[in-house]
Structures are given as C-alpha cells and as structure tokens.
C-alpha cells in the first residue's frame, strides 16, 4: 500500500510538471505582440499566395485557435484539442493534419532512440564498472574516450561519423530513412534498406550514450570498489566477473536516477542527430517545421517531447522502486 501511495504522490508530481509543460507550450509562443494568426499567416504564406487561399487559411486558424475568445478560453480550447489528439492543421503542408504528420514520423524516432538508449545504458555501465575495477591504463583510456564522447555534442559526433563512414569511406548510405525509389512497406528488401540507413544514426547515439554512462558508472564504481562487501567477496576468491556484477548492481542504482534526470537532454540531443542524417523522424520534422515557420507542427512536436520526457521519467522512477531492495523494503514498511 505504501508503494501505491508513493506512486500516487509521484503521479501528482508529474501532473504538476505536465500542467507546467502544457502552459509553457501554449503561452510562450503567444508572447508575440499582436494577433498571432496575423503574424503566423503572414510569415507562412507571405510570398505569392492568392488572397483567396490566404483568407481560407486565416479562417481555419482563427477558428482553431479560438481567437474570438479570451486567452484562458483559448487555452481551454487548446487543452481540449490536445486531449482529443487534435494538433490542428499544418501551415507548410496545408491542409495536412498535424497529428498524421507526427504519427508518420514517430515510429522512426522510437526505433532509433529506444534501442540506442537501452543498449547504450547497459554497455556504458558495464564498461564503466570494468574500468573502475581494473584501474590502470584500461581505466584511463576508457575515462578519456568516454569524456570525449560525452563532451562532444551529439550532432558533432554525428557529423564526423556521417562524413567518415558514408562520404569519405562510402560504407553506409548518406542519410534519409530509405533509398531513393523505395517506399515504406512491409517487405524484406525494404527492411534491409531501412536498416542500413538506420545504422549510422543509431551508432552515433549509441556511442555518445555509452560515453556518458561509462563516466557516471566509473565514478560510482570507484566508491563501490572500496566498499567492505567487495573486500569480503575477494576474500573468497570470487571470480572477477562476479565482483564486477556486484559493483554493477550497486553502482547502477544511482545511475538510474541519473538516467531519469538526463532523459530530457538525451531526447533533445537525439532529435538533433536526426537532422544531421536527414532521418525521417520527429527531429527532422521539427527542423523542417522551424525552417518553414510551421508553428502548429512545432508546438505538436515540443508537446510530444515534453510528454515523452515526463513519461520516461515516471517510468524510471517506478523502475527504481522495483530494483532497489532497500527502497522496496522501505515502501513495504519493513525496517
């Protein structure tokens, strides 16, 4: 029951963060002076649009934003629309539905980020734990490489990988989600093609993530290694991999909290990586939307990212409670 209470408290916390996210998403762009639709329509349809189509677009947005109402009513309309999954109509690809555009790109992003994060987390933490356990030259090498990988912004590594492995050495396609002339379909040929396009952006995310995790784990593990339980385990000549597993398991707990806090940066960085590879995910959608001043799309993407980050945080919170026996015990009320 205590665990449930803990969960509910956390849920309340995330509800507050979600409200803040919604508010930011709605009010920040409305800090523009004047009627936003005027500015938006002028900006997006500035050049060479017929006055008739301008009028049509204008009316669509006046209605969508509910501009005949006060700001708070507008916010209520906005929240209502969002809850129904209605993100409005795209400027740049009028009259395309923003939700459909997002739904088309989202799977690509998920396929890219989830494996990179999961695999990177495991590999990075293992490397960090082994480095701290082995010490010496291996440790120094891991430390500096990891520091470099995590210091270089995501997109810089992406730029270098793209140039190195697709242009200078043409091993991989130079970007996009699939080859020219193919269309997304459920076939082995397309899957193989998509996989070859997927690999470089995936590798780029994976490397950065391994670096960040390895550094974090190494500094946790350095403390764990001096712990008495490691000395006791050594006094039985436990195999090294067993001791590393002990250290890993104990160093992992703070690393999970670290993961929760880093998820925002992580997702944002991954979106930037997509841009470098013109990968057909949310990041590239956002990039194109910004170039075309397609505000409904921008807002849909930012809201989606905010929700995803909050959800991921919540997930990690729950996971942490499940993994650490000390926390679990406290929640069950045992000592």
């Amino acid at each position, binding site marked *: 029951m205590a665990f449930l209470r803990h969960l509910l408290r956390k849920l309340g916390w995330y509800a507050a963060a979600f409200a803040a996210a919604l508010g930011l998403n709605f009010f920040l762009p409305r800090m523009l002076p004047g009627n936003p639709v005027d500015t938006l329509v002028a900006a997006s349809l500035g050049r060479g649009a017929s006055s008739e189509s301008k009028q049509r677009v204008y009316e669509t947005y006046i209605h969508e934003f509910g501009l005949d109402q006060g700001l708070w009513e507008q916010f209520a309309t906005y929240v209502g629309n969002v809850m129904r999954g209605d993100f409005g109509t795209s400027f740049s690809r009028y009259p395309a539905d923003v939700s459909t555009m997002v739904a088309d790109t989202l799977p690509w992003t998920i396929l890219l980020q989830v494996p990179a994060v999961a695999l990177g987390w495991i590999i990075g933490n293992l490397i960090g734990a082994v480095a701290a356990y082995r*010490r010496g030259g291996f440790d120094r090498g891991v430390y500096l490489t990891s520091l470099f990988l995590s210091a270089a912004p995501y997109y810089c590594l992406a730029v270098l990988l793209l140039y190195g492995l697709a242009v200078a050495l043409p091993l991989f396609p130079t970007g996009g989600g699939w080859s020219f002339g193919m269309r997304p379909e459920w076939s082995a040929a397309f899957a193989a093609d998509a996989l070859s396009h997927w690999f470089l952006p995936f590798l780029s995310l994976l490397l950065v993530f391994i670096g960040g995790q390895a550094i974090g784990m190494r500094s946790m593990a350095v403390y764990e290694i001096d*712990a*008495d*339980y490691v*000395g*006791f*385990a*050594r*006094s*039985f*000549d*436990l*195999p090294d991999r*067993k001791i590393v597993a*002990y250290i890993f*398991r*104990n160093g992992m*707990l703070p690393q999970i909290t670290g993961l929760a806090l880093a998820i925002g940066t992580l997702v944002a960085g991954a979106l930037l990586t997509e841009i470098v590879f013109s990968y057909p995910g949310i990041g590239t959608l956002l990039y194109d939307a910004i170039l075309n001043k397609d505000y409904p799309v921008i807002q849909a993407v930012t809201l989606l990212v905010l929700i995803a980050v909050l959800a991921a945080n919540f997930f990690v919170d729950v996971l942490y409670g499940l993994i*650490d*026996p*000390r926390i679990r*015990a406290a929640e069950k009320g*045992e*000592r």
Partner: protein
Amino acid sequence: MTLATIRDLRAHYATAERRYHALDGAELAVEPGRILGIVGESGCGKSTLASVLSLNPKPALRVDSGTMSIAGTEIDLADIESHRSLRGGTVALLPQGALGALNPTRRIGAAAHDILAAGPGRIKRSASAARTAARLEELDLPPRVLDAYPHQLSGGMRQRVVAALATLRDPRLLVADEPSSALDVSSQRLLMNLLRRLVDEELVEGIVLITHDVALLSELADRIAVMYAGRVVEQAPARTLVERPRHPYSKALFASVLVPEPGTRERRLDGIPGSPPDLRAREPGCAFAPRCAEATEQCRARRPALIETGPAAAACWLRDPAKEPADAR
C-alpha cells in the same frame, strides 16, 4: 603440533618515491583450537598482516618473502597469486563491520551460493542452500535468512550471518580483522561469544584475531602476539602477557588495561611517549629504542631476535634469558 606457522614475513608498500616496510620479518604460530590475538598501535603492520594471512593482500602491497605452512600445505607468500584458490577454503577472513561486508543488493542465500560456487567443484543452487541453511542453524539463525537482504536483519543477526558465510567452506584458519572496532559494548560481547563458539564448536580450527583493543584480547585470546614496526616483539599465553609483560612496549601497552576508567582505551596507546616508528627508514637497532626509557647503546646498534623462553618469547636485549631467571612456566 601447530595449525599454521608464518615465518620471516617481509612486505612493503611502494609509492613513487619511497618504500614503507609494513612487515619486517614477522613470525607467528597458531595452535589448533586456539585464538591467537595480535595487538599493536595503528601502523604496526597488523592490518597488513591480516591481508597477507587471508591471502588477499592490498593492491599496493608487495610481499618480499615469507612462508605460511598450514595443515600440511606450504605457501610461498611472495607468490600469493598462485595460491588464490586457498582463499575462503583454507583461510577465510572475518571482516571489519558486519553491515558493510554484505552486498546490500544480494540475498544472503545468493551470496552464499556465490561463495560456495567459487570453491572447487560445481555445486547446485539447492545443494548450496541446504549447506548454508545447516551452517546458519549452527549459529542459531532461521532458514528464512536465506531469502533476506542484509538490511532486513538485525545487527546481531548480520554479525552471525557474516560468520556463517566466512566459515561456509570450512576453512582451517579464520582471520578476524578488527571485528569489534565499529561495535557498541553489547555487540562486542556478542561477537566475543561468537568467536569463542566458532573455535569450540570446531567450525574453524583456529582464529587469528587482530585488534587494537587490548581489553578484548586479554579476555578472549589464548595467546597474544604484540607487534611493533612490522615485527612480533613479544608472544606469550594471554594471561602471562597481560600480567607480566616483558617487552617495554608490551608493558606500556598493557599498563592501563586493568584501570577501567572512561576514556582509558583511547588514551592508552597514545600514552606511550614518542611517535610511532617511521617505516621508511630502517634503523639497525631495535625499532622501539627511540621511545624506550630503558634503551641502551646495544639496543640502538643491533636488532634483538625473538627468543623463546618456555611458552613465551620476547625480542628485547634487556630481557636476555641468560641474564634473567627463566619464567616459571
């Protein structure tokens, strides 16, 4: 018949600039069914000795020479790495502080299985659970402990769990390294009973108890060895040593044991004038000479050997048995 004999143990810690001679020719003998206590100030080499005896030296330590013969096996201590497999099975460590010694995220049963699996041969999970449960029961612990995490156990239970794990592979010799240092008085009492029990009920054949707690030693140990500057300077049956210490250092060390006054324990060791020896430089004479009120020219010039007189032995020129009436015992 002795259980274990350690001869001429020399070891140093090397930093970039200097060597610290932590052990400088230590000699010891543990008798079966007995507890040998080792006492000395911090820096005298006793915790280094514990790490070498449990065949698990600290990473920076280099053992220069020394042998340990235990239950018919001769171990070259300068080459401990090739005797790693004896850890846990022939010699085991009872570590300092029971809470920290247990992996907080591993159930006792799983940790026990890890320990048994590190030994020779393969062992099934069910077999190791049965063996562990039996050992736990011998120490009055219920089998449900197997499924517990360390934090779910009380302090006294944890202590017994650590003892059960340490003796799980039936080691001949148990090395207890400052086991009481972090404990309150009543837990110390429990620990002393536990150690005595391990020997009496033959869970181990002998114990080396390393501590700076003179009061604990004089009650618990059968024999006591006093260490100074990496050497054993006096060794004798516990009673003899407490009542009639012969080495001037032992005298100072045991002087206030019988004065039960708050704070004495802390003051006792610091009460010896002068500072602990500098382990970087090895003087030709007795290491204690600079702090010894009775030191003579001879003390400063040549190092005294550990000379046996009956069951006792001391390394001091002033206690030359030739000049002194031999101890009655």
